[in-house]
Structures are given as C-alpha cells and as structure tokens.
C-alpha cells in the first residue's frame, strides 16, 4: 500500500474526528452540566447545514452562509431549550430519550416541509477550493485541511473558555454541583440556555462544514449523532478532553479500518471474500472499540467524578 494513500486516509480520519469532536463537545457539555441526553443534537447539525446552504446560495457567499448557519443553529437550540428541553432536566433518562426522539421526528419533517425533499448543495468557498500535494505526490483538498485546522482552533477556544473565563468557571461549577451555584446567585436557567446554544452552534458549524463535502439532506445528522454518542461514551460522558481524544480515536479507527482491514484479510484469504469480511468488520470496528473500552472502563477513558 503506497505511503501517500495512508497519509491521505489518516488525514481523512483526522477530519472525521474533528467533525465528531464538534458534535461530541456539545453533547458532552449538555450532559455534564444539565445531565441531559439529547438525541436531537443531530437535528441542530442539520439545521446548521441547511441554513448555510440556503443562505450561501441566496447571497452568493459561503462565509455569510456559514455565519447565518451557526447563528441559526444556536438560535434554534436556545428556542428548543426554553420551550422543551428545560422541562426535561428533572426527568429520568428514559423521558429525555423519548422527548428528544420526538424532537427528531418534528425537526426532520419540519425541515422537509421548509426546504423540500431534494438535497441542497453547498459549494466549497473559492479561498479553500484548491488542493495541496501530500508527501508521496497525491493531491489533497485544502478544504479538508481547513476543517482540521478549524477543529483544532475550536478545541483550543473551548479549552480556554472553560478554564479561563467566568462562563467557563460557571460551567465547571455546574458540572460539580448544580444546586450550589444556584444558591450562590448564578442565574442557572440562563446558564443552561447558554450552554445548550453553545453546543447547538458547534453542531451547526460541523453540519455546515460537512455539508460542503457531502449533500445537505434530511436525516444527515443521524449517523453523525450515533458516532458522536460513541465518542462521548468512549471519552467519558461530561469530559470535553475525553470528547476530543475519543473523537480522534473514533475518526482515525473508522477511516483506517476501512482501508487496512480488507488488505489485512487479503494476506490469508482470496481477494473477494477478504473485501467482504474486511469491510464488514471495518464498519463494526468502532462499536467493537466502544464495547472494549466500556468492558474495561465502564465510565469511559476520562470519567467525570460527578453525578452518574
């Protein structure tokens, strides 16, 4: 196998990992601070992608579209939090799963109503539309590198925000003891809405970026949502650091597994059955990884010592 292919796939894995991190960090923050499982997080990803694609096409600028997409996702997130999610914090996980499952149905059908069932297309902006040459000689799209760079920036920004700012301090306090920070006079309802909107904005950003690589369609958030759940469970629910490491792990494992396993099986099998078995195993690989991690560390790699 040529080196350039391995480098290319490693970069693709990293790019998938970064996208997953954008989704997973929001999920894990919402779970860590509010104790809520949000299945509808994928819908916010979809909202971000749709608004970005629609505004970009109407205005003719990717960047304005991206801004609009992120803001729309954050606004929809805040709205949903105030209207529905807020009533679920005191409920058990079962109610949360059911209510957010219902939200998925509403969002998917609502989006189809507004935008129609045809997928939308989003073009990569001119600035990032070229390709660079990788060591080994194959070209690699700049846009995918830009996604990786942006993910790294967001990770750094989140780290600084959580460890250095007042909002971050409140988020950490909220994870440690919800009642106490309420008692200390922090407006906890607003804090929750802010955290939820922040998570929604990150999901919207992820949706917009991926929307430029693939088509923008209803249901696009669901595969990513499931992967993001795998990520936060591997990383330890509530831990942003865990989400970052879990996301990279899942992204790289998935992408590399898909190219390495079929050729690995090809060493001792005939080509067609090696491809079949290899790709079957590759699509199960991250779930095997998750089962392995949970069997060894039931609380994930970076357990958060707060409420279960």
């Amino acid at each position, binding site marked *: 196998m040529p080196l350039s292919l391995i480098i290319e796939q490693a970069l693709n894995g990293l790019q998938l990992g970064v996208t997953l991190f954008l989704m997973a960090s929001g999920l894990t923050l919402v779970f860590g601070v509010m104790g809520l*499982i949000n299945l509808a997080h994928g819908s916010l990803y979809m909202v971000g992608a749709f608004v970005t694609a629609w505004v970009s096409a109407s205005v003719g600028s990717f960047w304005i579209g991206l801004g609009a997409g992120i803001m729309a996702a954050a606004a929809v997130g805040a709205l949903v939090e105030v209207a529905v999610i807020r009533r679920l914090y005191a409920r058990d996980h079962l109610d949360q799963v059911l209510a957010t499952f219902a939200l998925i149905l509403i969002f998917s*059908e609502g989006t189809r109503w507004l935008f129609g069932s045809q997928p939308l297309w989003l073009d990569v902006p001119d600035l990032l539309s070229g390709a660079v040459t990788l060591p080994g000689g194959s070209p690699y799209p700049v846009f995918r590198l830009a996604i990786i760079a942006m993910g790294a920036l967001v990770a750094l920004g989140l780290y600084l925000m959580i460890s250095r700012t007042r909002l971050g301090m409140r988020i950490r306090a909220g994870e440690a003891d919800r009642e106490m920070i309420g008692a200390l006079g922090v407006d906890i309802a607003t804090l929750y809405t802010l955290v939820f909107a922040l998570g929604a904005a990150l999901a919207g950003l992820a949706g917009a970026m991926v929307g430029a690589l693939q088509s923008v369609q209803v249901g696009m958030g669901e595969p990513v949502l499931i992967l993001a759940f795998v990520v936060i469970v591997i990383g330890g629910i509530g831990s942003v650091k865990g989400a970052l490491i879990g996301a990279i792990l899942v992204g790289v494992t998935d992408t590399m597994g898909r190219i390495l396993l079929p050729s690995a099986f090809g060493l001792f099998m005939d080509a067609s059955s090696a491809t079949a078995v290899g790709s079957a195993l590759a699509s199960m690989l991250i779930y095997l990884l998750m089962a392995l991690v*949970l069997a060894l560390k039931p609380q994930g790699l970076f357990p958060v010592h707060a409420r279960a």
Partner: protein
Amino acid sequence: MRGREGWINGALAAALLIVPLALHLAGEVYYVNLASRVVIVALAAVGLNLALGYGGMVSFGHAAFFGIGGYVAGISAHHAILGTSFLGLSTTTEMPLIWLISVLLAGVVALAIGAISLRTKGVYFIMITLAFAQMLYYFAISFPAYGGEDGLPIYVRNTFPGLNTFDPITFYGICVVALFACLFLTARIMGSRFGAALDMAHLSETRLATAGIAPFNIRLTAFVISAMMTALAGALFADLNGFVSPSMMSWHRSGEIMVIVILGGVGRLWGPVAGAIAFVLLETFLGGLTERWGLFLGLILLGTVLFARGGIMGLIAGKARHD
C-alpha cells in the same frame, strides 16, 4: 392487577380477539393484516417492557433481537426454498422450529451483550446497548449473500403444521396466541420470587444484595428473556411482511419499540399493548391523512412525555402500584 387497570386489560384483550374477527367477517383483509402488525409490535414491546419497565434496564438496542428473529425466519426460508443449505445444515419453513432457533439465538446473543453491558449503568447502558445493535445492523448490511442493504425477501410465508398461514386471520390468530402467551409468561415471572427480585434490583440494589441475591444475575436473566420475546416478534414480523432488511435492526426501530413501551405505560403488563395499538394506528391514519405524519406523531409523543407521565395506562388507570 385489580380495579380499573384490570378492566382496561380485559377490554384490550377482548378488543384483540373480537375486532380482527369482525374485520375478517367484513372482508377487510388490509385491516386484519394491520391488526397482525399491531399484535407483533406489541409483542416486541412486551419483551422490552420486561427489561425496561420491570427491570429498569433502558435498552436502546432491542431492535437487534427483533432483527435476529427476522433474519432467522428469512435466511431459513431463503435456503429451504432454494434447496440450498446453511453451513451444511438443511433449513426449515416450519414456524415452530424457526421460532425456537430465533429465540435460542437471540438468547445467546443477549447473554453476551448483557454480560458486557450490565457492567455499566445509566446513560452508559443506554449507549452500549445502542452500540451493540449498530454493530449487528452493519453486520447485516455488509453481507451481500443475504441481501445486504436491500434486504431479503421471503417469497412464501413459512408454515405452521395443521394451519394455513397464508390466510390473514389464521396468521393473526398465531400472532395473538404468541402475544397472550408472552403476556401470561411475564405475569407469571413478575408474580414469582424471581420477579420480586427483579423489582428490587430496580428499586434498591443494595437491599437485594443484602438479601443474598446477586443483582447482576437477576438483571442478566431478565435481559435474556426480554430479548427472546422480542426475537419471537421479529420472526413473526418477517413473515407478516414477507421481507427482512437491516432496517429491522436500525436504531430507529429500537427507538420505536421503546416509544411504544413508554407511550403505553412503563412497567404495566398491558401497557405495551395499549402503546402498540395507539402507535400503529396513529402512524397508519396520520400517514393516510397527511404526508407530514412524522411531524404530528412527534408532537403527540412530545406531548405525552411532557404532560401525560405514565403513558396511556397511567392516564386511564391511574398510577402504578409502586409509586
């Protein structure tokens, strides 16, 4: 099971017996098949209810067992009709044998999944059961020999000795007997010492452990039985549709079975039946009224969670005995 809940259960049982028969006499084949669908989905939910409702194990992966049942029926019929063998074994189109294999296979898989998953709690349990179901889902997708993503048709419905399974009302009869048998089994389980232990594993693990009973074993046993019932439903579902596909194992399906349990009333014996009737009828009739049925179904579900805790049974029959 006394008072108002007993009356509702009786009414549900009577409706399951009388309404399809009346539809059959009126010649409404479509609605007889719809009733079969209700009963099969209810059976899957009765299975999940044992784990989720009585045992407090929120499994987000029961579609895996539903799909295992479906694929056993599908693969068995596939080989039997083509006259080929499965790993050197000849297969059958006899339903009782197919059910036995489905249930045993699902039991073995559930034992493995449960043994790992039950080490975790809360959200982790929800997510790891989801992960295992996804694993099986992708496994089913990536095997082209059995249809892969497109699924596997069952050209001729499997047979039952002495009965004509092609006759819609006869097939309905088979399904409803299976449902009643599993309801009876669940009632007997919950009335037994094991049931009391399962209840306590849910309510207070420490008290159960203090009594010298290991909560893990109790939970695992209940999880396996629960999976077996859902697998039986899957085998029937495959025969009803004449088709199995990976979508039987998708996380949407897991969510749907869960929604039915919650809609009907968690931990109520007949709750899943009420939930299945409501869910399938809503889906069918909203689907007939408007293309946007998903939107209204979502709104109704959301309303149920937010404002009608305890589901349909909670709404009509009042709180469960435990609360």
